[in-house]
C-alpha cells in the first residue's frame, strides 16, 4: 500500500515538475497572467470600484459571486457539522 501510494504520488509529482518547466519564471512581470487580467484589474479597480484594496475590489465586486459561493460553502459546512455532531435540539 505504501509503495503504491508512493509511486502514485511520485507520478503526480513528476507530471507537475514537468509542467513547471514550461511555466514563466517566478516573479516574471511578463507572464500571461500578470500581463493580461492581472494588469486589467490593477488598472481598472480604483476607477471601477473605488476601493483601495484591489483584492477586496475583486473579491466583493468583480468576482463577488465567487464570494457569495464561498459564504455558502462555509454555511454548508456549519450545517453539516451541526447535522453530524449536534445531539438533540432542532438541527
Amino acid at each position: 500500500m505504501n509503495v503504491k501510494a508512493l509511486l502514485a504520488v511520485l507520478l503526480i509529482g513528476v507530471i507537475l515538475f514537468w509542467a513547471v518547466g514550461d511555466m514563466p519564471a517566478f516573479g516574471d512581470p511578463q507572464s500571461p497572467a500578470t500581463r493580461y487580467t492581472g494588469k486589467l484589474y490593477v488598472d481598472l479597480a480604483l476607477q471601477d470600484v473605488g476601493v483601495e484594496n484591489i483584492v477586496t475590489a475583486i473579491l466583493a465586486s468583480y468576482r463577488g459571486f465567487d464570494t457569495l459561493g464561498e459564504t455558502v460553502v462555509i454555511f454548508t459546512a456549519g450545517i453539516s457539522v451541526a447535522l453530524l455532531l449536534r445531539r438533540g435540539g432542532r438541527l
Partner: protein
Amino acid sequence: MRENVVIRTISRISVPFIQVFALYVIVHGAVGAGGGFQGGVAFAASFILMFIAFGLSGVEKRLGKKWLMVYSIIGIAIYAGIGFLCLAAGGNYLEYGAIESAVGVAHLHGYLIDAVEMGIGITVMAVMVSIISDVMDRDGESP
C-alpha cells in the same frame, strides 16, 4: 475546563478588544489588508477564548445556538439581498452600479462593499463559533 481566575479575568478583559479589532478588520477590508472573512474569524476567536475560559455550556447559554444559526442566515441574506436589490434597481445581480444610479448617490459602491463584507463577517463568525462549539462539545446539547 478548570476554573482559573487569571484566565477568566484576562479573557473578560481581552474579549471586547478582540471584538473591536475584528470589526475594524472587517471595515478595514476596503482600504487595507483584511475583510469580512478574516474579521469574522477573528470575531469567532473571541468566542473561542470564552469557550476556553468559561467552558462551553456557560457561553452557549449566553449565546444560544439558535441565534448563531440566525446570524449565519442574516449574513448570507445581507449578501444575497444586496444582489437582489441590484436586480430591483435594474442591474444585473450584484451590479452595485445599478443601485448607485437608482438611488442617485455617488460613491455608494464602497458602502455596499462594506455591507457585503459585514454580511460575510457575520456568517463566518456565526458558523465558525457553531462549528467549533460542535466539535468541542462532548456531550451534545441535550442527550
